[in-house]
């Protein structure tokens, strides 16, 4: 079983969300997701200041197996993108919950967070997809 930190929220499409005090959230993909995708060769991060809708494709991760869209777990404005991933996409594999973060989003509506899963629910979701 891969690591699922208890303090984070999760989307069905395997993004994690870290809620910060300043009304922004940090988003990345879970350890389970990077495990499914395999070794990263390229990550395209969203442009800062762009507006995104919940479940909108806003970043692309490309591994040796496939290119996959990353869907925004919330609506809002991109306030930061992890530029380090351009040169070091492997951070998504080696440290998915830390150095491998993808974007920071200023929330448009806090209610979006209620649609996300906690760690227990996400663990069940991963388990159910596995069967």
């Amino acid at each position, binding site marked *: 079983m891969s690591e699922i930190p208890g303090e984070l929220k999760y989307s069905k499409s395997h993004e994690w969300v870290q809620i910060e005090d300043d009304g922004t959230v940090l988003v990345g993909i879970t350890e389970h997701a990077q495990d499914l995708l395999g070794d990263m*060769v*390229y990550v395209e991060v969203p442009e800062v200041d762009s507006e995104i809708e919940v479940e909108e494709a806003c970043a692309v991760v490309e591994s040796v*197996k*496939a290119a996959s869209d990353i869907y925004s777990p919330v609506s809002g404005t991109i306030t930061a993108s992890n530029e380090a991933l351009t040169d070091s996409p492997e951070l998504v594999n080696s440290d998915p919950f830390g150095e491998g973060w993808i974007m920071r989003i200023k929330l448009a509506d806090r209610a979006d967070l209620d649609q996300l899963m906690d760690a227990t629910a996400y663990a069940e979701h991963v388990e159910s997809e596995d069967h």
Partner: protein
Amino acid sequence: MSSGINMLIFEQSRKGRTNPSQAPFERPELTGIPESLQRKKRVVMAETSEMQTVRHYTRLSKKNFSIDTHFYPLGSCTMKYNPRACNSLSMLPGFLSRHPYAPDSMSQGYLSCMYELQEMLKDVTGMKEVSLTPAAGAQGEFAGMAMIRAYHDSRNDDQRTEVLVPDAAHGTNPATAVMCGYKVREIPTNDQGDVDLEALKQVVGPQTAGLMLTNPSTLGVFERQIEAIAGVVHEAGGLLYYDGANLNAILGKVRPGDMGFDVIHMNLHKTFSTPHGGGGPGAGPVGVNERLKPFLPVPMVAYDGDHYSWVTEKENPQTIGRLSGFMGNAGVLLRAYIYARLLGREGMVRVSEYSTLNANYMLALSKQKGFDLAFPDRRATHEFIITLKRQAKDLGVNTMDFAKRLLDYGFHAPTTYFPLLIPECLLVEPTETEDKETLDAFMDVMAKIEQEARDDPEYVKGAPYTQPVRRLDDVRAARELDLVWKSE
């Protein structure tokens, strides 16, 4: 082992070394060529002796892992045996010597072959007209989608901005739609491998330009609701695009035209025995129904009962235009023509019958040997999917490890990790040209590798052991492209 085994021909080059070796050689005098037309800089070519050159390319050819030497069940790619006759007959001097600028009157033989190929492809796909000119499957796809666009434009129907693509599609489908200026909407697949019809109904509408579908799909099953799908899309004013990738499974049995498709492309290298891989050259003819006929790419070949002639922009003013020099890859199209003639109507049916029989036989063997199937309740088409998720989880030996180990046993691996919907999958396509003994041997080896994975997983994870190279660094290969030799 002599030096040079892994060197490029350029690295073996020595200044002044020429082909004839010891034979006396005098450089010919250049006379009569104006100064202005003479090359000033030397051509960058390897300078090697004849023997060195022969050795180099013979060695390279021995490294080929090909259908001529090995079973190659690469799903979605239809790696079948191409009869040698297709090659030798297409190289007859009359074909090879024909100049593309030769007038119609001097090309009647070649034009008759192309006309007949158009007619045969029309007949076997149920379409109303075929253009042979696209120079590859991808270009055929582009041509097909461009025709859909031209059709809507011709009706001033400019609200149609979206193309629907099932999530099981080949990656080229959404890429084609985007290249033609459309937004892609993905349609989910249900747990039986069919398109989720309810989800389709939700997203189809006046903004729908068309739907791209491969049938049988990449999941190795026939889309059973195709008539209903066609109904939903047509009712909304959209058109249906058929990706001919898996035509081998239905050749002579079911026709895309009868399923309701408006436009299709065919990969001649898959179904019609033209060269595979290595950059082709390819051929991706397109076929259309009545309403898309005016938009077909030119040139095509017409026949008035007496004389064959080119159809150009003059005759088809609404054409989407030309896609390649002349009429595409002429020699490749000839190979497909000869293959189709060799098979005839009866042979085409045998292609689909034996390709599906072989796949279903392997599917049954896989079940018997305890492998998990992606769709155990469905009959396979010309290919089927094994999932090694259980082995990956329990034994720590994944699909890639199985694939690499297969090479040691003299089998090319099936397609790995595609389609993306199925975790740890192998997409197995034996084709109609393999015999039962080969299929048995392959499945025996699969079972043997699974036993090895139980006994000594680390050993399987280290495979291959018998190839010129071991595991390649996929990540570095993708990130640091280094394809071109440069002189110091």
